[in-house]
């Protein structure tokens, strides 16, 4: 009986410690966002809250940067889905020379640190006019979004027996109907979870937009740096920028957390 009391108590204590450890930086950031610059270092929990930072940030082009990030990350994921689904299907179904090499090549895009490739890409983009454009960033973001999507979906496609597709052909369905009616529902968990996860990766990307954009196009991750002015650092404003930037991710993560682990670790249901 003693164990019956102590074990849950210990477990909750451990969980609370962990929650504090994990959430405190976020909490700290939110608190700072409500402090005036003068109070940032001097007060801990007792301060006179102000919306001044929010006002200051929202008066700048913050929402444009936010929208830029949304456009770039969203389109990058859409392109990855449009290209990655057929690519994953081909890697799962067809036998061709160099198939495994190609699959590894795709995965290896994730291996190199971004800073390693960004300089040559910068020069190429300057040359072909993609520097500081949405299109250029969407393109280069494929390095971040595509590999994961392809590898997750390839596993899903491999789990669907080819006879299921053949049966659908004989039932009288066209290839696109087979895709929509049979394949899409079966890969949906993997597609949704990997697309959302890659969206988060894309949203957080910093190095690529830092070097490859900056004037006309600027995602919010890079734009947050603006509040590090040369004379002073507006920690309050930076906290606002960061907190608002993190908001979509928090919402997304809460929405999909149930499906995320399942979707990435389970294959299609066999039947």
């Amino acid at each position: 009986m003693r164990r019956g009391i102590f074990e849950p108590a210990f477990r909750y204590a451990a969980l609370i410690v962990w929650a504090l450890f994990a959430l405190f930086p976020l909490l700290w950031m939110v608190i700072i966002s409500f402090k005036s610059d003068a109070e940032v270092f001097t007060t801990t929990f007792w301060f006179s809250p102000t919306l001044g930072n929010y006002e200051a940030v929202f008066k700048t082009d913050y929402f444009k940067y936010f929208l830029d990030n949304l456009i770039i990350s969203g389109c990058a994921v859409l392109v990855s889905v449009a290209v990655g689904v057929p690519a994953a299907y081909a890697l799962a179904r067809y036998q061709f020379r160099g198939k495994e090499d190609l699959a590894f090549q795709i995965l290896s895009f994730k291996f190199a640190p971004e800073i390693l490739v960004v300089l040559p890409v910068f020069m190429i983009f300057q040359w072909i006019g993609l520097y500081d454009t949405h299109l250029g960033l969407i393109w280069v973001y494929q390095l971040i979004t595509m590999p994961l999507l392809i590898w997750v979906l390839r596993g899903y496609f491999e789990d669907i027996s080819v006879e299921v597709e053949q049966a659908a052909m004989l039932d009288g369905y066209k290839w696109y109907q087979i895709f929509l009616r049979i394949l899409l529902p079966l890969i949906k968990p993997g597609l949704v979870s990997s697309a959302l996860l890659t969206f988060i990766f894309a949203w957080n990307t910093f190095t690529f937009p830092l070097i490859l954009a900056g004037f006309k196009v600027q995602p919010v991750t890079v734009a947050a740096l603006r509040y590090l002015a040369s004379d002073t650092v507006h920690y309050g404003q930076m906290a606002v920028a960061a907190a608002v930037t993190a908001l979509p991710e928090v919402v997304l993560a809460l929405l999909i957390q149930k499906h995320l682990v399942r979707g990435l670790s389970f294959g299609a249901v066999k039947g």
Partner: protein
Amino acid sequence: MAQITLEKISKSFGSVKALDAVDLEVKDKEFFVLFGPAGAGKTTILKTIAGVEFPDSGLVRIGDRIVNLIDPALRNVSMVFENYALYPHMKVYDNIASPMRSPLHRKSEAEIAREVARVSDLMGISQLMERLPSQLSNGQRQRTALGRCLVRRPNVFLMDEPLAHLDAKLRHLMRTELKAMQTAFDTTTIYVTHDYSEALSLGDRIAILNRGKFEQIGTGDEVYYAPVNEFVARLVGEPEINIVDAELQDVAGECRVGIRAGASIVHYPLPDDIGGKLHASGVGRRIRMGIRGVNIAYKFEKAEGYLPGSVYNLEPIGNKSILTIKTDENLFQTIASNDLSVELDTPVWMYPDPKNMLLFDAADGRFLGRHHQAQLTGRA
């Protein structure tokens, strides 16, 4: 109108030759059985006819049309896949209804409900309509797959071991059902199995496939009573046919088969029809003698013309037993009644009936002949 013709079909998977210049003609409304060991190419033939696999070379005809370049959907064939190929995310009802919801064979929902009810009744799965395939046993999945195939009225039914995963009783029932249904539908059916009793009971004709080539195509009687070679003889029948070395001899103008038993040779005079034929082609040579278990008599006392041996094994299989007799050179499997009880190594004498001997060439295993061949195979 669905005669099916394959002309010189070849198909390789990597370095494996699945089909090697196969010719086949299945008549309209025929129940045609493809029979052979695993990996013989049976499924590949079905898929080639269905159009979901493409032959490397050769022509596929359904009716008068060459269908090589015709979409599987437009060939109007219905197939049961060996691994069921059910749609995992659809309920049993929707799986069976699937062909009738495709743009090609669309029916009204009322009609679909009626047809699905009819087929599922037939398959005994009416109570499972709301389940997903993952919630079914293998036998139930197989019946669902069969239901999805039978819900249509295609040119051709292609069935890849559709009863393999049912339990024995249900398999027997469904076998009868399938046969009745095929007669009623008047549709060409090509049926793959590796169970010889299924092949013999269902097939108007049976094609025996081995390593991508046909060994023999014929009626059940033909492949059973007059197999073209040792391979076919061994494949058809349970227990497997006994095939032993023997010698063809001439004793006073009479053709005899001599079988060695220890030091001596026991002679069996062949009936005139086969004896005469073999005599003309030369005696004194080595041959192979095949005899099925049901055609071996045995006694537990010495008798004239009986081969001496001893009991090697006695295996009851329900309504009968398989008695294995060991001679000095060979093992023979015979059928015994299941009330037989005998100690191992008991001396036993057996008599392979010359009227039922199947004789094969010693060199290449080719069938040489048997007694009453024409009468038994219906080619008198």
